[in-house]
């Protein structure tokens, strides 16, 4: 009689690189069920999802616009995860960065861009960093699980934003829950005329290059990688685990904050409630999909940016709800994570 048995057997190293690529077709197979239920043709849908956005100049640029904050939140999450700190709070840190940038942009009137832009960058970074601080301190001082605290901080900042927009910052003219406009000197310059592509993407690329350098070339990077892989082993080797983790957590928060600053200074020019709409959570998908490697993060952020743009094309052309984009993204995360687990096993026939 033939039987099958599941055994533990880690796959070779090259599988790890293949997994994100494998996850994509699997995801589309799974989501096609939902597309069919909605009465649309999966193939047409995928075409509009993945190909249409790149076909036109405007929508192709839009892919990069959408990717800008994703590059940063992906980098923020990957940096934290790499250092063994499970920062689920990029969403909240992004909001904090956006609030801080709005504050800078509305306070600094009549400054030249040479001062205004760096001030926005510093403000955004500081805002995200400050928002990451409580969770980081609770983690290193009391051992409180950062997954829980960073997640909870996300809800808090939403309320803070609401408070600001309905209270002190409410637009005095329209009475909309939206802050006053930031001053001209603090607006990020456009990179391509008459598009929304802005200076933020340059910041994002620089950040990704910096974290790549820090992680792979510096002693701090080696310390944080060691901690991420084995806290005990790192500690034994005399590495100051808590101090390193604190820095990692704060820098991660700061990077997420930059994403918020970019959305304010490059896209909206004021603060609104829906400044993010899940960009921070997408960062988790992106970091995972990119294997926590900065360059992988870069590629997967562009891919998720494509899906986000594609979701709008699909809903416009085919009338499929725009939420399909979220469904695809979540499925992709689940499939990728499952594959990372499954690669440790194999099925064998036994007689």
């Amino acid at each position, binding site marked *: 009689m033939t039987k099958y*048995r599941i055994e533990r*057997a880690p796959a070779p190293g090259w599988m790890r690189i293949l997994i994100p690529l494998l996850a994509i077709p699997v995801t589309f197979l799974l989501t096609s069920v939902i597309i069919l239920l909605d009465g649309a043709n999966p193939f047409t849908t995928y075409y509009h999802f993945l190909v249409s956005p790149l076909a036109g100049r405007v929508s192709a640029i839009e892919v990069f616009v959408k990717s800008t904050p994703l590059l940063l939140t992906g980098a923020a999450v990957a940096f934290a995860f790499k250092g063994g700190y499970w920062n689920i709070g990029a969403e909240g840190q992004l909001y904090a960065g956006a609030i801080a940038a709005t504050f800078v942009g509305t306070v600094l009137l009549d400054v030249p861009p040479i001062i205004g832009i760096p001030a926005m960058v510093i403000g955004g970074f500081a805002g995200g960093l400050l928002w990451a601080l409580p969770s980081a301190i609770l983690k290193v001082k009391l051992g409180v699980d950062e997954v829980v605290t960073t997640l909870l901080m996300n809800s808090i900042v939403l309320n803070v934003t609401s408070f600001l927009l309905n209270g002190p910052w409410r637009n005095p003219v329209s009475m909309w829950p939206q802050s006053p406009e930031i001053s001209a000197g603090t607006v990020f310059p456009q990179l391509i005329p008459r598009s929304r592509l802005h200076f933020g993407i340059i910041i994002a690329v620089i950040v990704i290059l910096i974290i790549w350098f820090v992680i792979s*070339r*510096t*002693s*701090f*990077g*080696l*310390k944080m*990688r*060691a901690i991420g*892989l*084995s806290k*005990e*082993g*790192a*500690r*034994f*080797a*005399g*590495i*100051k685990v808590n101090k390193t983790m604190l820095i990692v957590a704060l820098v991660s928060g700061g990077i997420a904050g930059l994403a918020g600053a970019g959305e304010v200074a490059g896209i909206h020019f004021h603060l609104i409630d829906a400044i993010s709409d899940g960009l921070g959570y997408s960062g988790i998908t992106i970091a995972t999909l990119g294997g926590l490697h900065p360059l992988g993060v870069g590629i997967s952020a562009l891919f998720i940016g494509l899906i986000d743009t594609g979701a709008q094309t699909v809903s416009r052309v085919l009338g499929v709800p725009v939420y399909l984009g979220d469904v695809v993204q979540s499925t992709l995360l689940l499939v990728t994570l499952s594959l990372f687990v499954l690669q440790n096993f194999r099925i064998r026939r*036994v007689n």
Partner: protein
Amino acid sequence: MHAVQMKGIVKRFADLVANDHVDFDLEKGEIHALLGENGAGKTTLMRILYGLYHADEGQILINGSPVAIHAPRDAIKLGIGMVTQHFTLVPTLTVAENMVLGETGSFTINLKEIEKKVAEASKRFGVPVNPHALIRHLSVGERQRVEILKALYHDAQILILDEPTAVLVPQEVEVLFNALLRLQKDGLSVVFISHHLNEVMQICNRVTVLRDGKLTGTVKIADTNLKDLANMMVGRENFGVTRQGEREQGKVELRIEKINAVDKKGLQALKDVSLEVRQGEILGLAGVSGNGQTELSAVLCGTQKITSGKVFAGDVDLSSADTSDVCAAGVGRIPEDRHANLVGELSVAENLILDQMDKFKKNGIMDQQKIQDNAEELIKTYNIKANANDRLRTLSGGNMQKVMLARTLSQNPRIVIASQPTRGLDVGATDYVRSTLLEQRDRGAAVLLLSEDLEEIMALSDRIAVIYGGKIMGVLPAQEATAEKLGLMMAGSAA
């Protein structure tokens, strides 16, 4: 008549062949030793018999008929019982409750009834246990008896004991052997796993020897002797590295003064421990596992805090030191658990510099060339079978230990703390580690060797201290320390 026959058993773990076409048979009513060095494949073979592992090839016959054993419950049904190296009792339950765990027979439990049955079984088999006692109140020897009785209670005709003496003091070993001989008279067949030649000679009828996963042979005890068995086991007669000659002792380098510490559960694990280790000597700390060695080692490595007392490395006060202070003070550490204290997913080269990064960086940037050169040099000097860029976790236990040694000892520490440095290593690696420790001593380092292997302690140490229940029972010069004296001290009587 054969109780068990195992034919051509093959078991692979990825690339490693833990059992390579092994034949084994157990006659009814015999005590059969399974002898071999650490890692020879003894546990693996018996775990296959008990259904904990599945053989890749081979056949098992019980009482002459072929059987398929998929899980321990199949083995139990066939009358096989196993006492594993790590006990499987639940500490917060009583002896009787543990006996019927997973096998209550009915939905409700009649504890009175069970306790009565356990007491009866205890009398019938001549294995004294108290059914009402909580497991956590029992000594290791008593817990082992409960494990044995548990197997017998489930009608085991075949009993597998995996290194039963490893956790016992010599006096408890005697009690165990008497019980086994009595059970043998009643017809029980026993597989006795060990790597101690003397024990095997003492109570077994036949012995099967494994080496590197292969069968070396099966012989009657009556037809063999210690020397031959040693030969079969390690492939050469003379094994082990020993200390040569006495040394002029230097000044005290490591001073431990009345330290106290607690274990993971918060119970007192070290009680006023004081020790001094001098330059150019190995101080061996003997003791049965679980008497405070783990905590003492953790304290000296900087991974655990003491509740009171003082620790000095030369003039440096390390009483409240963390690992970075300990590294900075020139204390080299070879920890008990090398898997946990290296980083498996980092490369060999990175692991080799992890505790001395400052020497390999310029302005915060790692000097890759220097790291690579360092790794290649140490791989050569310490005979590590790996490439600099291999991930550490792909190395064998012996090579991992060599990485730890290389990292620690290449920094010429003035103090060396070595905890179970040869546990789980093969003969070659063991010899290597031992001679390296002796080199450190000859170089003038103060070496504290914590080991549960009494032979190792006696072979290497200039002076021997014994720890029992978290207290130092005494310190003897090597010349005065006989196995007997040390055994008594390890069982709790003062020197």
